[in-house]
Each structure stands twice: as C-alpha cells, then as structure tokens.
C-alpha cells in the first residue's frame, strides 16, 4: 500500500473503472447529478491547468454570443 492509502484506505479511485463506480455510487455526486450538475465535466476541468479552463470558457462564451446575436437578428 502506498503511504497515501495507509493514511486513508478508502483513498481516491486508482483506476478508470473504479473512478466510474465511484462517480455512479457516491451519494454526494449522485445528488449533484440529480440537481443537474455535469459531474464528469467538472472532473475533466479539474484535470486541466487553469489556462486551459479559461481557454475553454472563452470558446463557450464566444459560442454563446454568436447564438445570442443570431437569435436577435
């Protein structure tokens, strides 16, 4: 066992399969999904550096503005 697992045997999921099980069974995450939160998208964002989070946000903002302008024509 790693020192991290010794400190917390429950530890974070170590494999993709385990991660999927955790996301689908953890009660907090299940409630978040019922509330409409895209937990997979948030998890993906947590793996990205801040600059990449901002870059993707700017792309989404640009898309939002294009659609908004199109709707207002």
């Amino acid at each position, binding site marked *: 066992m790693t020192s*991290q697992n010794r*400190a*917390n045997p*429950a*530890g*974070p999921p170590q494999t993709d399969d385990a991660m999927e099980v*955790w996301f689908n069974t953890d009660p*907090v*995450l299940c409630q*978040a999904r019922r*509330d*409409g*939160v*895209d*937990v997979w*998208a*948030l*998890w993906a*964002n*947590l793996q*990205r550096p*801040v*600059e990449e*989070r*901002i870059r993707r*946000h*700017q792309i*989404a*903002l640009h898309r*939002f*503005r294009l659609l908004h302008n199109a709707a207002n024509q």
Partner: protein
Amino acid sequence: MKTDPTDILFILAKEEVDFVIVGGFAATIYGSQQVTEDIDICCDFGPANLMRLQSAIADLKPVHRMTPKRPPLQLTPESAKHFNNLYLDTDVGQLDCISEVKGVGDFVRVKQKSRPIKIQGYSFRVLDLDALIDSKKAMSRPRDQEAVRQLETLKYIKQKQER
C-alpha cells in the same frame, strides 16, 4: 484592438492595481462550467488604486454602464473617494469593480480570503473556494444557486482526490 475580456486582468496586473478576482470568472478558474460575460473584481477603493485602475484601462475606453448615457470613466483623486462600486463597460467587455463581497466582507477581508494564482506568467489573487461559495450563497439568485452546486461538487471531488 484586444478582443479577449481576460486581457483586462493582464492589464490591471501589469499596472499593479490591487484587486482580487471574484464572481463568475473566479468560478471558471476553479473549474465551473458556467459561462460569464463579465469580469468581476474586488479592489481597493482608495483614490490611488482607483486612479491606477483608470490609467490601466484608459485605452479600452471605459464607460459607466449602469446608466443610459454611459458617461466615460473620468475619475479624479477627489471624485474617486465617493465611489463604492464601478460598473464599467470597455472595448473588450464588462468590468465590475466592487469594494466588498457580500457574504465575505470588505476588500481587506476578501484579500485575506484569497489565494495567489498564476495565469500566463502573470500573478493574480483569486477569492478562495470556500469564500467564493459563501459569496454565491449570499447572493441567492438562481444562477448563483447553480454556481454553488457546481463549486461544492468541485470542492468535494478535489478533497476526495487529494486524500
């Protein structure tokens, strides 16, 4: 002409304006999926810092946006003493400058509850995640409630991953 609203932040940092990133853009930094059109900052509303801010964004033609006449931003050291908030529109987007954050406190408190962050080599301060959640809870608009859900989920996943 710069077209990215985030350029405002780099301009302010270069001119050593004292501010903390708050609001929707802070949420983006933490990984939120919500899209925000404006940049919200909490800053020192002392005249010297406001004059530095005005000087920094002068080329972006800032105007007061919450009035139909949209007058240009024209602070003096004397008139700057009378502002608690500045809601501005610029050539690259909206910049809302507030002197305190509901649910957190004044700028001194906000700065205490902030953490350093580097974006493209520039140093900034951003409201820490717990304080950001508190500020969103204090606002209680529907979009803020959505922000709270996302930020609390991000905090939860992060805590689990860091164990």
